């Protein structure tokens, strides 16, 4: 527990400073420590927590906004065709980390990033890497549905058009909308504005737009935070289906959602120095039932954050 990193060995790198702080935290709330062994103990050993096919490899990533450090020393491997959830209290850097995976943070002036991220072994950072290529391979769905003020058809076709798609555009649009479980609802109104759809439909349209450029990884930044429970349910079902074809990384502030949809969960936390670090990473069922770290447990049992 307090003395170990994750059980699959070195996936979650925890530096000494963190370990020290964690010891202190654990010492302060010893009740958490006594509490843990009773939690889902039966399941722990049955779970095989290994990553066989790494799609995204995050290696010691840190990020500064100007002089302010936002995240530090984050390392984790994402399994292909799985859903990986990033959870943690607000300000822990989970969205920042997510946006490192398609180099979206660089749109903000004054951002500096260290470390390396690889997709299929190919590095995303380096002087000869084009962030535009990276973003084509690593698509993104945002917190607030953000369709372009264009027709539904053009929303989906946009990325394919600019990226020189040579195939049949109508087919691509239909297939993407089908994959996003939106086709049946909009097939008769493809020429109408994407803004005319409901919030949940807009978000599925954004998913279709992301799929249309055939990414390998799809990042989702709290994709349901602006939606009602029914629309949320649909998106969650959709994510499960999409995981067959894509690797999905989702940021969520909603722990139930992480527990419902994800295969693996990473818990991030920013402590007194306000720098976000990875605390624990593992299979979702294991992390939620028998976390290794007392801070993880405090968070998932609602003791803070």
């Amino acid at each position, binding site marked *: 527990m307090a003395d170990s990193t994750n059980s699959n060995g070195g996936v979650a790198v925890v530096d000494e400073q963190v370990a020290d702080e964690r010891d202190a935290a654990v010492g302060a709330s010893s009740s958490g420590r006594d509490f843990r062994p009773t939690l889902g103990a039966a399941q722990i050993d049955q779970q095989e927590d290994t990553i066989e096919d790494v799609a995204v490899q995050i290696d010691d990533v840190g990020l500064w906004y100007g002089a302010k450090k936002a995240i530090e020393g984050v390392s984790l491997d994402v399994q292909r065709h799985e859903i990986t959830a990033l959870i943690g209290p607000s300000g822990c850097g989970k969205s920042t980390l997510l946006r490192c995976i398609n180099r979206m943070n660089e749109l903000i002036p004054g951002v500096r990033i260290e470390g390396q991220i690889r997709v299929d072994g190919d590095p995303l950072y380096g002087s000869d890497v*084009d962030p*535009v*290529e990276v973003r*084509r391979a690593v698509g993104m769905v945002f917190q607030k549905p953000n369709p372009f003020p264009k027709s539904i058809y053009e929303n989906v076709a946009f990325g*394919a058009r*600019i*990226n*020189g*798609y*040579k*195939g049949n555009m109508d087919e*691509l649009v239909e*297939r993407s909308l*089908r*994959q996003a479980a939106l086709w049946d609802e909009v097939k008769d109104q493809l020429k109408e504005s994407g803004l005319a759809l409901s919030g949940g439909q807009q978000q599925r349209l954004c998913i279709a737009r992301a799929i249309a*450029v*055939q990414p*390998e990884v799809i990042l989702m930044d709290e994709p349901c935070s602006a939606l009602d429970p029914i629309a949320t349910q649909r998106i969650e079902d959709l994510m499960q*289906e999409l995981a*067959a*074809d*894509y690797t999905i990384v989702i940021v969520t502030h909603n722990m139930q959602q992480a527990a419902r949809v994800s295969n693996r969960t990473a818990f991030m936390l920013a402590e007194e120095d306000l720098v976000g670090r990875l605390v624990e990473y593992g299979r979702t069922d294991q992390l939620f039932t028998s976390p290794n770290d007392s801070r993880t447990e405090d968070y998932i049992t609602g003791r803070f954050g």
Partner: protein
Amino acid sequence: MTAEAPAATTRDLFEVNLARRHMIGVIFQGVALLGTLVGIIVLAVLLIEVWRDGIHFLELDFLNRFPSRFAEQAGFKSAFWGSLWVIGFTALLAFPIGVGAAVYLEEYAPKNAVTRLLQTNISNLAGVPSIVYGILGLQLFVRGTIGIGPSLEDLGLRDLDRSVLAGSATLALLILPVVIVASQEALKAVPPSIREASYGVGATRWQTVRSHVLPQAFPGIMTGTILALSRAIGETAPLIMIGALSFVAFTPGNPLDDFTVMPIQIFGWAVRPQLDFQDLAATGIIVLLIVLLSMNAIAVYLRHRFGGPASR
């Protein structure tokens, strides 16, 4: 869901061609930068040209001589002082009326159709060509009638003829929409909590406005008013309309005197075919621009010093 694994089959159909797309982007950024520089370069050329044309007549005595048939004896005295007189009275008229109107619209006016009409009317007035204000000034102040209803004479007043006051009143109406809108912005920027605090200790509406809201908004109002006045000081057409003269050999002694102003004197010189007079026009422009840029500098200073409406 269809299990045809589309990702694998269609990924090859993209001809991404990023090198070309990036090149287009770089070219476009260059063109956009060029477009940005056009205005700046022309401004620089204009200032340099005016300076080169006008420098040899530029001496302190230029402001101490009246116009003359001979370029080397001609001066800017009547125009310079005429402009100051006109702008002074324009400020005296436009400032209280403009601020009063803004206070009414922001602090007093009910949210109804009349108020909306007032507001729409003000923004439309801002788009009326200045020469139309000249026609208004000509009829209303110089001739004393707008064609319908009683004339100023019928009301027991005298018309203002081609006086400083007629010019100031015309320019005041011209810049009023600008002063009102700028003052409204400044009043809007005053947090409501200040008003509530004042009402909370039993102040009346006017006491609240006078003692708390207006002082807070004052720098912003001043900035907007000065910028509006610096527009007025460069106005030519409306003053030509009301009959300001271009050859005046005296400075105004009271607001009902005849007058000329700097832009009209510049115009008078610029249309003369002799090169010397065109250079005199440039000298006049230098003086006008110095006055104008000083006013802008004061406005910018006020904006920074007191943090009025944020500079966008």
